[in-house]
């Protein structure tokens, strides 16, 4: 039994020892791992705090040298070192690579120490980039505390961390100390992590900037004006497709191509220099190139610090404006001519009326007086038309609408032209449909003016033996005009199927059997500039502004005026008037 108890005790003791040892072992492991974690945690926290600080201090800077500078300045809380240095590669305008070397002395070291750091960093950067930079390639900056010639310590330990942006190594960061074996794996790792995160942030920022730049580029590319950006070195940095097309250039374009294509029309280089050097907007108002007229604006561009970056050149196509300007000038010239001609006649005749020969000849006298009458009436007509056109242009054209009888008005107008038609051996008649309403609102005087104009035109342009018909009928909404014209037993040369109105309209047409008008000329009929000029050169009397004024009158009534014509067969000038007070600004009735 004793044996058994002893045995049991022994077994228990062994068991206890095993359990305790296991427990102790586990406890130690737990404690070690806790301590490790705590260390790890504090390391992480530190990294985080540095990163946050970096984030705040970097802001949105893309200058890698500034970022490295900030990292270097934060390191003293993390590591013990003598110097922190960096080398950064940059490319100059002429394509050469340059290395900026910056060393910050935390503790006084001698010159030899600095040379040592430089040497090890050069070896490292050459290995990293597979280049062969020498110390002459360095652009050196020394900062921090003073160098100490008496100090004798050499570099005891150091480590390099590559600086990588968007997957590309651009330099290295170096930490060096006079003490031997100062840096362990952990310190190196921390710096690696910080460096990586910083370069990540820069890469992301760069990406955002690239997107923004892309947006800007596509905006410039889609602009209607030609845009070029020329930098201070007179290099072409941006040219959009419109500018290329305007200058007649293709694909890859240099500043020389631009100067070449403009060489015959403008001294572009001088203008550019004037803009950049004198810092002012330079405008070339009208440059003719490849049958187009351009306005060229050269604007100097500066950055926030007022440093010149070059110039932006805008090419603005003013061909249309110039054409319009010329039309206006021609119009004024023709107008003056049209007034001067009858005035000269009146003056000549007035000179004669005082001579005895004419005074004593009753027939001649009467003839001359009637010429003065005709001329002054022509002039008054022109002045009235011009005034109407001016009122239309300025929107001061006013209608006096009251209930009136359109059928009666047409009959009266036709009757008044009967004598002129007979004189020209033309038949003139009115065909008014019975359903034309007796009374509705319109400006009787103005519509009368339109009818006068259309009827007198038709008589003027129809050869003897021809026919002029004034017709009026209702055109219901959606009804085909060509069908309706046939139903009314009318013939409108040039009218094809497919013309209708959106709401019921009164349709009034003046049809002749004259020479007709070509499609090309129809488009110009209602243009005041073209009209006055062409009538001045034709044998037909009249200002040619009548149609322009008529168009204004009809449009003021919310109606539409237009032409159907077939060369050789005849022409119909028509206009519509809304009869049930429905305002329809765009009756779909093109011809």
């Amino acid at each position, binding site marked *: 039994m004793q044996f058994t108890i002893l045995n049991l005790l022994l077994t228990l003791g062994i068991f206890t020892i095993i359990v305790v040892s296991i427990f102790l072992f586990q406890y130690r492991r737990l404690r070690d791992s806790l301590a490790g974690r705590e260390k790890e945690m504090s390391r992480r926290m530190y990294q985080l705090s540095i990163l946050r600080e970096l984030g705040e201090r970097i802001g949105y800077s893309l200058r890698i040298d500034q970022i490295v500078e900030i990292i270097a300045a934060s390191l003293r809380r993390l590591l013990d070192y003598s110097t922190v240095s960096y080398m950064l590669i940059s490319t100059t305008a002429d394509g050469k690579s340059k290395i900026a070397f910056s060393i910050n002395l935390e503790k006084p070291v001698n010159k030899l120490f600095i040379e040592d750091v430089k040497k090890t960093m050069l070896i490292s950067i050459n290995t990293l980039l597979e280049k062969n930079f020498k110390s002459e390639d360095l652009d050196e900056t020394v900062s921090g505390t003073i160098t100490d010639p008496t100090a004798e310590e050499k570099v005891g330990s150091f480590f390099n961390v590559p600086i990588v942006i968007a997957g590309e190594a651009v330099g290295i960061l170096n930490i060096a100390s006079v003490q031997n074996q100062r840096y362990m794996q952990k310190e190196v790792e921390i710096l690696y992590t910080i460096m990586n995160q910083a370069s990540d942030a820069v890469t992301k920022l760069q990406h955002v900037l690239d997107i923004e730049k892309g947006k800007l580029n596509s905006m410039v590319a889609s602009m209607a004006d030609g845009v070029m950006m020329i930098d201070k070195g007179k290099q072409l940095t941006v040219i959009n497709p419109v500018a290329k097309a305007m200058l007649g250039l293709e694909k890859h374009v240099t500043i020389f191509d631009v100067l070449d294509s403009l060489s015959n029309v403008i001294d572009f280089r001088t203008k550019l220099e004037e803009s950049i050097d004198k810092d002012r907007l330079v405008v070339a108002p009208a440059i003719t190139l490849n049958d187009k007229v351009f306005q060229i604006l050269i604007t100097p561009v500066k950055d926030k610090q007022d440093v010149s970056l070059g110039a932006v050149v805008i090419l603005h196509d003013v061909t249309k404006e110039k054409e319009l300007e010329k039309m206006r000038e021609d119009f004024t010239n023709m107008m003056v001519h049209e007034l001067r*001609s009858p005035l000269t006649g009146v003056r000549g005749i007035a000179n004669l009326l005082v001579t005895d020969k004419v005074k004593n000849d009753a027939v001649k006298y009467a003839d001359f007086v009637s010429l003065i009458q005709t001329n002054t009436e022509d002039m008054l007509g022109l002045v009235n038309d011009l005034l109407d056109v001016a009122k239309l242009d300025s929107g001061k054209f006013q209608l006096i609408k009251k209930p009136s009888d359109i059928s009666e008005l047409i009959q009266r107008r036709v009757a008044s032209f009967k004598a002129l038609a007979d004189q020209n051996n033309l038949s003139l008649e009115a065909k008014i449909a019975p359903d034309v309403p007796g009374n509705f609102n319109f400006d009787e005087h103005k519509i009368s003016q339109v009818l006068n104009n259309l009827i007198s035109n038709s008589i003027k342009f129809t050869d003897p033996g021809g026919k002029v018909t004034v017709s009026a009928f209702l055109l219901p909404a959606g009804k085909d005009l060509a069908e309706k014209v046939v139903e009314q037993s009318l013939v409108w040369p040039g009218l094809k199927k497919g013309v209708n109105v959106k709401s019921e309209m009164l349709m009034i047409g003046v049809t002749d059997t004259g020479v007709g008008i070509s499609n090309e000329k129809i488009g110009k009929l209602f243009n005041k500039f073209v009209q006055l000029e062409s009538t001045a050169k034709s044998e037909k009397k009249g200002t040619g502004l009548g149609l322009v004024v008529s168009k204004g009158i009809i449009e003021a009534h919310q109606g539409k005026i237009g032409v159907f014509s077939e060369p050789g067969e005849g022409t119909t000038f028509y206009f519509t008037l809304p009869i049930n007070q429905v305002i329809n600004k765009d009756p779909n009735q093109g011809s």
Partner: protein
Amino acid sequence: MSKILVIEDDPAIRKAVAEGLRQDDFEVETGGDAEQGMEILGRFEPNLILLDLILPGKNGFEFLKEIKASVKLSKIPVIILSNLGDQEEVQQALKLGAEDFLIKADYNLSEVVEIIKKHLSKS
């Protein structure tokens, strides 16, 4: 008695000029366009032609060119009486062989007659 051909499309000016010249004992024929002018030249031999430039159909420049190209008519002096008067137009008319270029608004009727007389006395 000198004979004058007036080509002018404006009836008032045409009549006034013709009457003014007749009062000074000129024999005058008038035409409203280049075509009528040529037709008159077939039967009437003027000592001088007074020509407007803006004419319906063929313009005054073309008419002048035709006259100066004709062996029979090229010797007749031509005076332009026009509303035009740009340097360019004056140069063109003189180059084509016109004796003088008068702008309508600048001369009254009696002055035009005096200038015609002066040119006739020269030739």
